[in-house]
Each structure stands twice: as structure tokens, then as C-alpha cells.
């Protein structure tokens, strides 16, 4: 201890204090501050770049997922559209068929109706004609009878035979 105290040089202590103080001040100003700032900014830069890359990756993944989703949706939509179209086609065909059937039926019915009415009118005309003929025959018969009895009878017989044939 005595030796230590003897060796302790106050002058050296003083000089060391001054030198160390000046050195700390100078190093802080000219070395440590720019170095630490530089390191900090570099590390921040690296961190930012990493974060940006990570974000980009996430975004990419999102984008991919989105794409996938869109694709899926598109596919589903196409599918549904096709189905709809097919349904529409079938329905249209079906509709057309029923409509055609209906129209045909109507037409047939109309034709039948027309035929019926034609027939009716023809029958009516025929009846009129027949009745006219009958009246005519009756007129002639009446007139013949008035002249020749036998002849009258024969005529009526003929006439009637004719009428039944008709």
C-alpha cells in the first residue's frame, strides 16, 4: 500500500484526466457520433428493407389468394352461366314445343270446327235442295196424278227410289 501510494503520481493523474477528458470530447464529436448514427441508420435501413420485403411477400400472398378467389369465382360464374343457358335452352325448347302443340291443336280444332260447320251448312243446303226437289216432285206427281193414275204412281215410286239412294 505504501509502495502504491509512493508510486501514485498526482501529475500523471492530472495529465491522464485532461487527456482522457479531451479524448472523450473529441472522439464523441468526430468519431462516435457519426459512427453510431451511421450504424443506426444502416440498421434502420436494413430493418426497413426486411420489413418491406416481408410486406411485399404478404401482399403477394394476398394477391395470389385474391387471384385464386377471383379465378374460382369466375369459374363458378361461368359454370352457373352455362347451366342457366342450358336451362334456358331447354325451357325455350319446351316452351316452343308446348306452344306448337297448342297452336296445332287449336288449328286442328278450328279446322274441325270449320269442317263441322261446312258439313252443317252443306247438310242444310242439301236438305233445302232435297226439300225443294221433294216439293218439285210432289208438284209433278200431283200434276201427273191428275192426268194418269198409273203413271203418277210409277213416278212416285221412281222418285222415292231415287231419293233413298241419295
Amino acid at each position, binding site marked *: 500500500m505504501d509502495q*502504491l501510494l509512493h*508510486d*501514485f*503520481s*498526482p*501529475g*500523471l*493523474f*492530472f*495529465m*491522464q*484526466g485532461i*487527456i*482522457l477528458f*479531451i*479524448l*472523450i470530447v*473529441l*472522439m*464523441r464529436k*468526430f*468519431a*462516435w*457520433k*457519426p*459512427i*453510431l*448514427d*451511421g*450504424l443506426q*441508420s*444502416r440498421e434502420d*435501413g436494413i430493418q426497413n428493407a426486411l420489413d418491406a420485403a416481408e410486406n411485399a411477400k404478404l401482399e403477394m400472398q394476398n394477391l395470389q389468394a385474391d387471384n385464386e378467389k377471383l379465378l374460382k369465382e369466375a369459374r363458378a360464374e361461368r359454370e352457373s352461366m352455362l347451366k342457366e343457358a342450358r336451362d334456358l335452352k331447354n325451357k325455350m325448347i319446351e316452351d316452343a314445343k308446348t306452344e306448337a302443340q297448342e297452336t296445332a291443336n287449336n288449328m286442328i280444332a278450328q279446322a274441325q270446327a270449320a269442317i263441322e260447320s261446312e258439313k252443317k251448312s252443306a247438310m242444310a243446303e242439301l236438305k233445302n235442295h232435297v226439300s225443294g226437289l221433294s216439293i218439285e216432285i210432289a208438284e209433278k206427281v200431283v200434276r201427273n196424278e191428275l192426268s194418269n193414275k198409273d203413271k203418277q204412281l210409277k213416278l212416285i215410286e221412281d222418285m222415292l227410289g231415287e231419293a233413298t239412294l241419295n
Partner: protein
Amino acid sequence: MIFLTMKVAKQTFKFFILVSFLFANAFAMADNSSKDPVVSGNKVDTAEEIREYISHHLKDSHDFHFYTHNESGTHYSFPLPVIVWTSNGLKTFMSSAFHHDDAGQVIVDKGDTKLVKIHSKIYELDQGATSVNFDAEHHATNAHKVLDFSITKSVFGMLLTGLLMLLGFGALARGFKKGKSVPTGFSRVLEPLVIYVRDEIAKPNIGEKKYRKFMGFLLTVFFFIWILNLLGLTPLGFNVTGQIAVTACLAIFTVVIYMFSGTKDFWAHTLWMPGVPVILRPILAVIELVGFVIIKPFSLLIRLFANITAGHFVVMSLIALMITLKASFGPVVSTGMSLLLSLFIMVIELLVAFLQAFIFTMLSSLFIGMAVEEHDDHH
């Protein structure tokens, strides 16, 4: 000095090395001529002389000594400025005025003051005395120590370290200032070290939020100690971090910093510990204060001082094995042993050089961390 430093900092590192060597050579050559007849033929070859030599090395010295030629006694060294505050005011001269005398023989007469150097310390002779008188324990009786602000070898080492740091880290800083985010050349070696101190020492101990304020001190102290420790391992023979004044100053810086940055919480816990009986609180306060003001810095300064001094002592002793074992094992075996052992210890010392810088910085940041800690988490 600062101006000079800044000016030189602009130049390249190589240029500085070149210049410093030129200067060293010039001084060494200048000193070459001033042969010293008193100490001619001073081989260091006995155990006593080796002990002397080692203890002399461990002390600070006033000139930069490379080696002494055995037979001619020529010292290859260059003088450093001596600046002393005597009873008659400031005196400055070059250390060459002592002619390498370390025993109080050569008296430097500065008009009204007579100065001598005894065991690396400068003494002022009492009024009227013409030579130093020693008592039985070899203490000067008619001379007293002066305040010595000399640029001693240690101060020179510190200035050199400071310059190296300003150049090295200045270059790294300039790289960052220019907007380059990846340093090139030597800066590439320094940058991970700075990151190491920041991420492994400062951040875990002080905390993410507050570490930034103390980085200037911690980084400076870490590299200052480390470079000085490494310089101590070179044959230049610096022993700066083995000077107790230097380690004491470093420790006091740490104390001042953590004392002045202590939070309210820290002082509350130190002076009036909550959660303990009131009677115990003053006792605890005394213990805590003693711990923070005396024990912690003392452990810091002693640890660094003792490690470096012991390292130097062991390395030099092992090198001296070459001489001390020559009689019993012969020159080849003793030299081989000495080389092997000192190589081994040198490798360990290389580790210790880093380790001590690390521990000093680590403990400093730990103490700072204690002082700035927010205690709200455990109440």
C-alpha cells in the same frame, strides 16, 4: 496539441507512422552522441539487477528508452519534455538534462531551483543544498517531490493512443459521413468492435433507452484501455495501464459519470431504501454510499492496475529466465525455456489485454446501469 492532432488526423495513417519513426530515429541518434560514462558496462545479469530492471520498467519514466548497448553503455532513447511545478513556479526542460541518471547524482540547475531524479521521480533540493543526502532507507532527506506534469512515457503513450484512436475511428466516421453504409479497409475491422461494445456491453447493462448517452465514454475508455494494454505488450515497453494514477483516473471518471447520471430512484434506493425497517435505513445508506463511492471504483482501478502490472512482471521475469537459469541449465535450454514460456504468457497477455478493457467497460456500464435504472418494475 489538439490543433496539431486535428491537423495530423487529416493525413494518412502511414504518413503518421513514418513521421513518428523519423522523429524517434532523430532523437535516438541525437542521443547517441551523448555517451554516458557513468553507467558503462552495465549488463543486467544478476537476480538483483533483474529485479531492479523490472521494477524500473514498471514505473513511469521521463525519457523514451529503447535499449542500452551493453559494453559502451550508449542509451538508445529520446528525451521527453519535463514540466514540473516547483516552489519557484513552473520549470520546463528536456529529460536529457538528467543524462539518464536515476539516482539523484545529476543536478539540473534552473537558476533558483535545483532538480534531481530519483527512481523515476523528480525531487526539488531544499534551499541551500548542493547534493542529495539519503537516509538509511535510501530516502532523500533534503529534497521533496514536485508536482510533475511532464510528458512522461505514459503520457506520451496516452497521446499516441489518442492519436491512433482519432485517426482510426475518424476514418470510420468519415466513411459514414460520406454516406457509405459499409466501411472499407481498416475501418472494416473497427466497425464490428464498435458494434460489439454497443450491443454486448452497453445495451444489456444500461438498457436500450438510455445507453446512447454513455456510449462516448464507454467506447473511448474501452479502446483507450485496450490499445494501451496492447502497446504495453510491444517492445516499446509502455506500462500505462499499469500506472495506478492512470487506472485511478479512469475509475474516477466512471464514478463521476454514474453519480451524476443517477436517477431519483437510484438515490432513493441508495439513501433511504424502501421496504426495510427505518432503523436499518441509515446503516444501509452508509453501506451503499461506501460501495458506490469507494469500493466499486477501487475494485475497478485495482483490477486493471494489478492485472497489467502482474502481466508485465511475469513476462519480464520469464524473459529473464534466459539469464537466471543459464548457470544451471546452460544457454540453449534456458533460452528455449524462456522463449516457450514467455510466448505462452504473451498469448495469455494478449487475451488479458482485451479482457481487462472489456471488464472495465463492462463494470462501468453495469454501475451506470444501476444508477439509471427505473425501479418501477419490482414494486
